[in-house]
């Protein structure tokens, strides 16, 4: 109940040992360099490693959750849960770990961290957070965020999130992430100072690009399609599973009534009494066994939920590609039209409609000097545009390459994790069946003694 289903002492991929950069001086530079470095990853390992803040193997635990009260931004009293994050570094010689950092964070801070990562690593499938509100509940589970079971499962989910980030070859090197784990006070300000919110693409822009992009990379289109379907199928699965859990609960619990009635019946029987009484006890055991069984199943549901949310992260990467591609297409279109305008001006033929052409017709021809000036401006713009197009093209290709690399990594991870999840689910079912056989065999023996 305490630990996440996976190994809680998951350690980082061994990143190269690097000295800590000077925290304050290098902060801004480091952050932006971090961001650039991430994007230019393909251009050489060398540039990346200089300002790494990350060190040897570490362990991360979200070990506790605590209810707190405080004042929120609007100075209103609120209750929230805070989570204790403990970081340990592991001496690889003897495997001993030493507590290096320990601080408290609330859910909203995790959200802030993730939003930051989304902006600065758009080509990475960023690990998702556990759900904000309890969804896919079956009747026994509370939909209340303060419910201890929900909080417990969230604690595990948050730990899982941190472990995922920490084990990602690129994300683990992020300075803000490092500070999230090590600098309790002032972290929020630090993140906001990066100005990442401004850098974020607007939803509207992204939506527009999705509709209008003409030539996106087919793989991304397919991937987007896949992530839509994945999201739909896992949602469906979780919904039905919740109903199945509900019904199963009912079946087991009703058997508890046998316990009582057998007991009452045994009171009026002579020879049959003992057998009935003890069988009734087994029926009670059977009825109460379902609680643990379903609790275990919740872990399975959580594993599925993670991938449900991962589908959204996949979509985000696809959207970014579409945006970049659309941008590129627009820039190319713009450049082409400018070139045409220039040509028309130079040759004097008007093929396309332009406002200038219109006004010229209305207000008279322009002078050759005016025309020359305009051509010059256009030529400058064209040259600039060509530069921009070239760099956008490069950017786009880099993005596709890096994103696809991370997507491949993600696919491997997904296949591995989901297979593990299915295995553990099967194991749970097997355990449930064995318990059932045990209880009914015991009951049968009691009946035989009637």
């Amino acid at each position, binding site marked *: 109940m305490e630990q996440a289903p996976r190994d809680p002492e998951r350690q980082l991929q061994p990143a190269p040992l690097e000295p800590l950069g000077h925290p304050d001086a290098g902060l801004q530079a480091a952050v932006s360099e971090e961001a650039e470095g991430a994007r230019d990853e393909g251009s050489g390992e060398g540039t990346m490693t200089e300002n790494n803040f990350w060190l040897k193997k570490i362990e991360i635990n979200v070990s506790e959750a605590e209810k707190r009260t405080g004042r929120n931004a609007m100075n209103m009293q609120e209750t929230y849960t805070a989570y204790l994050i403990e970081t340990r570094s592991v001496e690889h010689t003897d495997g001993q770990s030493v507590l290096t950092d320990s601080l408290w964070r609330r859910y909203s801070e995790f959200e802030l961290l993730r939003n930051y990562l989304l902006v600065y690593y758009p080509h990475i499938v960023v690990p998702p957070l556990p759900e904000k509100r309890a969804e896919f509940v079956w009747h026994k589970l509370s939909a209340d965020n303060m419910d201890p079971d929900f909080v417990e499962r969230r604690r595990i989910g948050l730990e899982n999130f941190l472990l995922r980030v920490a084990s990602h070859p690129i994300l683990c090197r992020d300075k803000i992430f490092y500070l999230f784990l090590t600098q309790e006070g002032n972290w929020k300000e630090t993140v906001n100072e990066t100005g990442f919110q401004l850098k974020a693409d607007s939803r509207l822009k992204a939506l527009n690009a999705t509709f209008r992009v003409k030539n996106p990379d087919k793989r991304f289109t397919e991937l987007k399609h896949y992530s839509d379907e994945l999201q739909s*199928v896992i949602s469906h699965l979780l919904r039905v599973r919740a109903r199945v859990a509900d019904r199963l609960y009912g079946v087991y619990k009703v058997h508890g009534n046998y316990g009582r009635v057998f007991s009452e019946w045994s009171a009026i029987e002579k020879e049959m009494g003992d057998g009935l009484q003890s069988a009734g006890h087994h029926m009670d055991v059977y009825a109460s066994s379902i609680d643990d069984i379903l609790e275990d199943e919740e872990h399975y549901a959580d594993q599925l939920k993670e991938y449900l949310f991962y589908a959204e992260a996949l979509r985000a990467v696809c959207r970014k590609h579409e945006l970049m591609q659309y941008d590129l297409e627009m820039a190319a279109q713009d450049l082409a039209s400018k070139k045409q305008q220039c040509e028309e001006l130079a040759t004097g033929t008007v093929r396309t409609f332009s406002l200038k052409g219109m006004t010229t017709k209305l207000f008279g021809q322009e002078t050759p000097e005016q025309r020359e000036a305009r051509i010059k401006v256009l030529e400058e713009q064209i040259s600039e545009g060509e530069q921009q197009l070239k760099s956008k093209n490069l950017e786009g290709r880099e993005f596709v390459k890096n994103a696809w690399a991370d997507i491949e990594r993600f696919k491997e991870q997904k296949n591995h994790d989901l297979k593990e999840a299915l295995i553990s689910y099967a194991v749970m*079912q097997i355990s449930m069946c064995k318990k059932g056989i045990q209880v009914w*065999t015991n009951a049968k023996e009691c009946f035989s003694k*009637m």
Partner: protein
Amino acid sequence: MSGGPPKGLPSTGPHSLLDMPHPLAGSSSEEAVGGDSTPSPDLLMARSFGDKDLILPNGGTPAGTSSPASSSSLLNRLQLDDDIDGETRDLFVTVDDPKKHVCTMETYITYRITTKSTRVEFDLPEYSVRRRYQDFDWLRNKLEESQPTHLIPPLPEKFVVKGVVDRFSEEFVETRRKALDKFLKRITDHPVLSFNEHFNVFLTAKDLNAYKKQGMALLTRVGESVKHVTGGYKLRSRPLEFAAVGDYLDTFALKLGTIDRIAQRIIKEEIEYLVELREYGPVYSTWSALEGELTEPLEGVSACIGNCSTALEELTDDMTEDFLPVLREYILYSDSMKSVLKKRDQVQAEYEAKLEAVALRKEDRPKVPADVERCQDRMECFNADLKADMERWQNNKRQDFRQLLMGMADKNIQYYEKCLMAWESIIPLLQEKQEAK
């Protein structure tokens, strides 16, 4: 393969409504081996032995034959029926082979009743007749009339109250057949009832209807006189044992009623669980179509859930067909018992009233009048018969419930075993690809 004496069966009319896989169509052979019914004599002859073990019914007796398998059945019989006072069985009755008869006026089911006996009351060693439910009903009424001091076993309900059940469905007919079989076996086991003339006629007459019309010719004296006992006598004191039984029966019926409701509720919940499972499994299939490496594992899980669903359906069917009817039958049984107890009370009350009337007359007659003596006889007879029947009933009840509840446990065990097998078999499938990576 040895066989018994060949039997010429009377023609049984239209084809059997049940789809029989056995080459000798016309016998409920398949159920016989698997369930609560007894194998019919022809079945034992026609099949090769050693194919399946003969599974014997709850506390009943199988039809004996001269085939090798019957020696094991003999052994089983002795083990099961140790409550019968070790007497040698000389009467065996079986109900099987339901057939649907479609006539202009009505459609109904008849069952074949096979009797084997060495008793002198039977002219032939073997009989086979066909009877319908209303014949059983007639028999029961006749028994109640002619043996009022005895407990007559209950019949399955005449009308299907639930409304939705199809009177001609296989499940309903089979359930009814088992109950009718039980009914006759209980009478067969009874040292007094089994010698009843009406019972004999029921088992042997070619034309029962003609006999029915003959009327009351065979009523015994005791029956007649008890019939004439009017109500309205107040009981002084009930003998302790009968009072205790009365109380017991009240509570017993209550508890059985509760168990019936619980069992029904469980079945209902299980069916709803099944409905959800049937939607759940296929979603894994849908998912597997989206994936590459995960396709087989997901498909495997889907199939697994499908297997569990099937196992669950079998469980709920079994419980509905085998468990609930037997439970209900016992509720009816305890109701019959209570009405017999009431009759006994009446007889006692009459006796006491007559006795009191004599005492009040204040005559110097030293002799007790004859009719009061007769009343006393009647009462003592009744008490003795009833006491014996109650003991027999208690024993049978214990056996029957032991078997019923063990059966329920068994069905659940089998369900879980099927599911366990399904899940265990996909573990290697889920793991295998992992290593192959």
